[in-house]
């Protein structure tokens, strides 16, 4: 764990370490805890790595890099037996005598070896490598890959800084008893957070327009795509507010390209009217909603799963929507692709719902596979349009879906309206058209979309005595907990990531599984068990127990294990 104040660069240290281990084929999970301020306060960044899959935060620290005194005060007691604190007594302005502490003069070493204080973080990374007695080669390679565009000199100085840290640690460390297992097989791994995985997924799903107003924890997507727009055929616009953002995305989609917007719960509030507009005009749009503890501004940089029922039911009137709640960055990537596909196929809004915990957590993962992505352009372009005698934007069809046409691509007019409209898109007042439009827009599509939703994934024995359900980011922690408990008890996990409309049971009768379990539990990061209630609304099923956490922090492995133990 790296701890310190905002602005001290702990994220950089953490990310470099994580990426490094991933490249070395270790499984890595990292998680950030930070305050809503730019300098000062207390933040920390946790990196776990292992030879076997890991996917959540847990108690206990092996190596603590303390960039300030507060870090020592708050986290010293969390050290595992054999754990170690490394710090720079000059920076922390305190000298600790206990053998648990290793004083590494980050700053001084940086100045000596690299001629600049700025490289003290690289010294720290090097020190960690030294403590673990690990080869410096991979780190050197990573530094080179990262800094080469800034010049060979910067690379060399960073490498020197890393080496100084490593040498110092190896030399002075008295308690360095870490035995680092060999990494798993399978070659180097990617290292990626949940939000960026969504952004990457969007880019690789043909997203060509992104408009947003900055808001934690969604800004990462805006930043990633803005950078991508320098290289790729993509327009990214920072809107004046969230209302503009969603209306822009809808406008772009109407004009003929795949479009997306992103925000957090509070910004989504301002998009609710636009959501309804997308529903009425049958305009595909993808919306990323990052969840943070609310109501209102709440804890801007922390985590919660408190917006599920809100997002499921937001907006006046009745229309279909798709909601995806990925459990890992890899799921985030693939489900974003599915969201784009379903949004365009059925001409509905599709929402990616993710909490800050997953959005900001960086994970190692095997290379994402583009061959698994679906890309179909469902729109009518000039060629197809020119063959049509007539075109009606909202024509009644068997499926309820009327092909989208690109306005201006042919002589056919593309007319749509937020008022109730006829097949051509013009305003009407009559009951008959209304009924047919509700059937087209809502009822027919709903059934088809439901059948597209993949069932939850089950991990566990065939007839578990205890069954834990969860959704979204809790895949990791519940998964590890269940694995931990599996020796002693019959326990399984049911994880939902395609959550609305709730998947049918044809492919996999998950309701049967629930009904058959002796003890059913629903675990969520909120206070009112929103997912359990959603399940009850749609199926009547009631869980025996509910586990909730609502302090703005994610579940920790040990905590979940304790609660699930039979």
């Amino acid at each position, binding site marked *: 764990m790296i701890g310190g104040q905002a602005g001290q660069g702990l994220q950089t240290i953490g990310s470099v370490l994580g990426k490094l281990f*991933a*490249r070395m084929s270790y499984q890595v999970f990292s998680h950030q805890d930070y305050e809503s301020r730019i300098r000062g306060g207390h933040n920390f960044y946790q990196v776990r790595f292992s030879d076997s899959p890991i996917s959540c935060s847990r108690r206990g620290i092996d190596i603590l890099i303390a960039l300030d005194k507060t870090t020592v005060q708050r986290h010293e007691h969390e050290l595992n037996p054999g754990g170690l604190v490394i710090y720079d007594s000059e920076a922390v302005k305190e000298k600790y005598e206990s053998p648990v502490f290793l004083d590494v003069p980050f700053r001084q070493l940086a100045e000596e070896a690299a001629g600049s204080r700025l490289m003290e973080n690289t010294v720290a990374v090097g020190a960690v490598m030294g403590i673990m007695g690990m080869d410096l080669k991979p780190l050197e390679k990573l530094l080179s890959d990262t800094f080469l565009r800034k010049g060979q000199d910067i690379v060399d100085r960073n490498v020197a800084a890393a080496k100084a840290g490593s040498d110092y640690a190896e030399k002075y460390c008295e308690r360095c008893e870490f035995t680092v297992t060999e990494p798993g097989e399978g070659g*180097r*791994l*990617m*290292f*990626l957070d949940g939000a*960026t995985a969504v952004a*990457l997924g969007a*880019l*690789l799903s*043909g997203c*060509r*327009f992104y*408009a947003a107003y900055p808001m934690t924890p969604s800004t990462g997507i805006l930043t990633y795509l803005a950078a*991508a*727009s*320098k290289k*790729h*055929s*993509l*327009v990214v616009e920072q*809107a*004046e*507010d969230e*209302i*503009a*953002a969603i*209306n*822009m*995305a*809808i*406008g*772009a989609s*109407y*004009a*003929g*390209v795949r*479009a997306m917007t992103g925000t957090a719960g509070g910004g989504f509030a301002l998009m609710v009217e*636009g959501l309804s*507009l997308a529903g009425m*005009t049958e305009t595909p749009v993808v919306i990323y909603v990052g969840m943070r503890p609310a109501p209102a501004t709440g804890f801007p940089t922390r985590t919660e799963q408190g917006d599920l029922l809100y997002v499921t039911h937001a907006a006046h009137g009745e229309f279909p929507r798709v909601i995806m709640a990925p459990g890992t960055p890899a799921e985030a990537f693939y489900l974003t692709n599915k969201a784009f596909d379903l949004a365009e196929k059925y001409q509905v809004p599709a929402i990616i719902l993710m909490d800050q915990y997953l959005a900001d957590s960086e994970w190692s993962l095997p290379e*994402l596979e*583009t061959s698994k992505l679906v890309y179909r352009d469902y729109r009518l372009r000039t060629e197809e349009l020119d063959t049509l005698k007539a075109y009606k934007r909202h024509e009644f069809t068997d499926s309820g879906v009327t092909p989208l046409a*690109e*306005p*201006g691509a*042919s*002589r*056919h*007019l*593309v*007319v*749509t*309206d*937020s*008022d109730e409209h006829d097949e051509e*898109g*013009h*305003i009407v007042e009559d009951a008959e058209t209304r009924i047919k439009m509700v059937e087209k827009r809502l009822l027919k599509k709903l059934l088809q979309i439901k059948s597209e939703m993949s069932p939850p994934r089950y991990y566990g024995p065939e007839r578990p005595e205890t069954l834990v359900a969860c959704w979204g980011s809790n895949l990791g922690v519940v998964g590890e907990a269940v694995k931990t408990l599996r020796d002693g008890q019959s326990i399984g996990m049911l994880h939902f990531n395609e959550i609305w409309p709730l998947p049918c049971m044809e492919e996999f009768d998950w309701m049967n599984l629930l009904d058959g379990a002796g003890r059913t539990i629903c675990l969520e990061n909120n206070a009112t068990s929103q997912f359990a209630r959603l399940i009850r609304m749609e199926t009547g099923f009631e869980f025996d127990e509910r586990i909730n956490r609502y302090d703005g922090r994610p579940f920790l492995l040990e905590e979940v294990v304790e609660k699930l133990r039979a």
Partner: protein
Amino acid sequence: MPELEDYRGQIPAWCPGCGNFQLLKAFKQAMVELGVEPHGLIVVSGIGQAGKLPHYTRCNTFNGLHGRTLPVATAIRLVNHGMPVIAEAGDGDCYGEGGNHFLHAMRRNINVKLFVHDNQIYGLTKGQASPTSGQGMMTKTQPFGVLPENLNPVALAVAMNASFVARGFTGDTDFLKELLKRAMEHRGFALVDILQNCVVFNKINTSKWYKERVYHIKADEHDPTDREAAFQLALEFGERIPTGVIYRNDRPVFEDSLPVIATDPLVKQPYSIEDVAGEIQAFF
């Protein structure tokens, strides 16, 4: 070449005598004279009497939410800058509910034409004061008369350095048509604030009231590229009301500044996953 007939749409649901009829006429005539085809035009509109205009002619239409014409129009233009994009809005729509978008569209200088049907009243919702309603006007929701000062969209637009700022009047249909044409021909964001009588709810700013006040700005008396002069002229709204082009400049157009659409419109650019797949590598 398009003809007027090509622009015939649904039968309007406006009240007999409403200034919107003349506005519609000027609109159609302008498009015909500009040689724009209905399918070669995208009109975005809001909710209100104004917002119904595209239904009463023929064009690609996105009739969206109350107050939200400009974000939709902005994005459409960014995606397809090969198409002229017009936003038809009401005064409540654009200066009330949508005021923030108005400010930021001007800042961006997106090449969208904004035609505001400014009847100084909320028409469709039956006669509440709009941001441009005159101070003192009595309505059912302003029992003490309108207390805030009426918003002067033209002065505001000059202050925001909007690229093209004009005022027209529905009763002066031919002149209005010319203004619409000039707005269409201007490169950059263009506001035409169109004084429009509402025969049912605005008994103060009637057709007669406007007729007695509006005058044409003379080319030799006003230089629309002079921002301070424009501001001064913009403030005139009372006994006399100037109509015509009040201000213009040739600020860079937003979509011209985006390298990605420097050549083809975004919607015309081919997409292939191969072009972007390489980005995965950055995460090793």
